[in-house]
């Protein structure tokens, strides 16, 4: 809605303090609208039949159906992880519908053919076609519930040999690439949710950047859960071939609902020699209401594999979801590869987040940087959990970690769980951690200069997160700043 519109306006015009003031005046979750489109929903429950139904619905090749069925077998033998510092009512996996497609099976010839209601949704999200037309530099793939509705700028990207499309489309059009890399970074056996996703994923995004190509624009996907009683299980696969570069953005919203919705995504990044992927996420799933009712369970597995001198930079701004369980990680397999993780996680009211990263150093001269900023307000719990693992053969590996926590109020919690496993004596590992409380003195100082309390909090918090926000592409950073302000409104005093 409004936020997204601002995002685009900024591209063209520039942003004023008044707009910020307007935004600050709005307190409630603003993506909480439900789009009334007849959905093609699978019956609730999960068994082999449902998986076959999904696969058939998507006209998938036999190998993919087998992949799913195998994953389902694996999943059945697994139990939900309980080690995270979160407490919630476990989802009833037989009460969820695993597939919800907007009912309109034919392929759109042009955007004029798109269901007006769906267009309305996109307008609310600020990514209507009209606005897209005016934009340069951002290509958007829009995933509503589980099916990707449209991808723009395809032609321009195609000239460079870049593939950017929905996952289903990739399965049809580029089966070799999908077959080669699917599950290569996050195997189906990896964890409970990854196995579940592998069995039932319905759509997502696929991206391939050919050798030596520097993608000229930010590629962006928007995810939205719409249908009630459904889960979202999208799959993202980004492959950067040798010496290529891509910056990929991902945004998430979900409508306000009383029940908890499950989101269990898998993101795999494959970064070949000397290539680089910059992956930015602004996650704003519905966090539940002020009493902690409803909200999205965000159980996501994200991991990238770096070959020689390859680089992955994860940046995430997490303001949404009732429960977050998410550790975007890097396997630094190739010599000289680099992994970076920049994170801001905000929790307010009854939100719980257990998030961080894993940096697995396998290659020589590998480097990783972790900057994590947690902000807790209300009665929320915010945990950083990170693993730095240096294997014996990883000569001269280096890691720097900085984990800061900011507390607002006295009923919230901030926790840090750093794990360091080092099997090579030549490694250099640094870890810094701070915990601070938002200062009454800082607030008073700002207010004495005429700045309202809400705006002062926003200033202080954005200053605190600056190192991370600076990693985001400019337009995204402005949006993220506003989200931070909105998430923390009314949390002091």
């Amino acid at each position: 809605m409004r936020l997204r519109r601002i995002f685009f306006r900024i591209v063209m015009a520039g942003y004023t303090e008044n707009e910020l003031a307007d935004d600050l005046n709005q307190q409630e979750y603003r993506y909480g609208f439900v789009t009334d489109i007849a959905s093609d929903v699978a019956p609730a429950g999960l068994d082999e039949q449902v998986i076959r139904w999904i696969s058939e619905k998507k006209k998938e090749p036999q190998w993919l159906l087998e992949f799913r069925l195998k994953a389902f077998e694996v999943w059945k033998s697994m139990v939900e992880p309980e080690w995270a510092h979160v407490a919630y009512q476990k989802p009833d996996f037989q009460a969820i519908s695993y597939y919800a497609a907007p009912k309109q099976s034919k392929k759109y010839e042009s955007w004029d053919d798109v269901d007006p209601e769906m267009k309305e949704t996109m307008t609310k999200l600020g990514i209507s076609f009209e606005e897209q037309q005016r934009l340069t530099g951002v290509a958007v793939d829009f995933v509503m519930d589980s099916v990707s509705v449209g991808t723009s700028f395809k032609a321009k990207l195609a000239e460079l040999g870049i593939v950017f499309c929905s996952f289903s489309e990739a399965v049809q059009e580029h089966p070799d690439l999908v077959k080669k890399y699917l599950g290569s970074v996050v195997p189906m056996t990896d964890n409970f949710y990854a196995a579940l996703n592998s069995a039932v994923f319905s759509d997502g995004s696929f991206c391939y950047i050919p050798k030596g190509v520097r993608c000229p624009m930010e590629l962006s996907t928007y995810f939205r859960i719409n249908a009630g009683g459904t889960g979202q299980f999208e799959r993202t696969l980004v492959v950067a071939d040798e010496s290529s570069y891509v910056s990929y953005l991902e945004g998430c919203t979900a409508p306000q609902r009383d029940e908890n919705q499950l989101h269990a995504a898998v993101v795999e990044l494959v970064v070949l020699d000397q290539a680089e992927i910059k992956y930015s996420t602004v996650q704003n799933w519905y966090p539940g209401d002020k009493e902690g009712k409803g909200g999205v369970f965000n159980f996501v597995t994200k991991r990238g594999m770096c070959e020689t001198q390859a680089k992955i930079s994860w940046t995430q701004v997490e303001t949404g979801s009732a429960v977050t369980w998410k550790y975007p990680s890097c396997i630094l397999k190739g010599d000289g590869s680099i992994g970076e993780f920049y994170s801001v996680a905000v929790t307010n009211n009854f939100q719980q987040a257990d998030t961080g990263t894993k940096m697995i150093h396998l290659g020589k001269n590998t480097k990783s940087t972790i900057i994590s900023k947690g902000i807790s307000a209300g009665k929320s719990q915010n945990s950083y959990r990170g693993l730095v693992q240096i294997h014996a053969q990883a000569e001269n590996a280096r890691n720097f970690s900085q984990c800061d926590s900011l507390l607002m109020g006295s009923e919230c919690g901030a926790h840090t769980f750093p794990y360091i496993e080092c099997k090579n004596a030549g490694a250099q590992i640094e870890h810094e951690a701070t915990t601070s409380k938002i200062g009454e003195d800082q607030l008073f100082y700002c207010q004495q200069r005429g700045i309202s309390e809400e705006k002062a909090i926003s200033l202080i918090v954005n200053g605190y997160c600056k190192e991370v926000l600076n990693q985001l592409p400019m337009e995204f950073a402005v949006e993220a700043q506003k989200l931070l302000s909105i998430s923390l409104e009314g949390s002091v005093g």
Partner: protein
Amino acid sequence: MLEIKALHASINGTEILKGLNLTVRAGEVHAIMGPNGAGKSTLASVLAGKEDYEIISGEIVFEGKDLLELSVEERAREGVFLAFQYPVEIPGVSNVNFLKTAMNEIREHRGLPALSAKEFLSLVKEKSALVELDASLASRAVNEGFSGGEKKRNEIFQMAMLEPKLAVLDETDSGLDIDALRIVAQGVNTLKTSDNATLVITHYQRLLDYIVPDFVHVLFDGKIVKTGGKELALELEEKGYDWIKS
């Protein structure tokens, strides 16, 4: 401009101000002097609206408005500026961004349009020269890693930018060497007009060599016990506060 009548204020149940009266007119510079614990900083905090202090009785009228009814930011927007004794650090927030936010809030309150980036930056250049503040400090985070002198000069720089009606300088001279003191005082003097007023709170007389007050008040045990011209400050310096106490 400012009228304080029979003001009683306490913190954590301890009464600090015990019937303070003070009148400040536009164009005047007043100095408040007094020994430690007399209530000088309490007066500054109460004027700014710090919540820790409880007003027991009395009134403060500022430009015809009941100051005690206004929030901290409303007072600031009405033109009350406090130069802090211990300026606060705000990591990651640039001085420029901080000031721009403050200025635009104040301008909006006064019905003025927001400044353009160009206007703002030329103002920054002009005003920072006034207190000989290195231009690079303007782009650094608010007071972060500033020396004591830089912090105080930054306060006066902010004052120059925000153009308050009433500036309250709380022990601005503390921790300043003589050069910094001269620069700070020069800044304050330059900003003085017939429309604004300054309240200089200080323990020592030396700041008043540079900022010449129209009135000197001696605050003792929560009340103003003596008022005079600038010569009173010299007399105090010579005789010490015991002279007042006895």
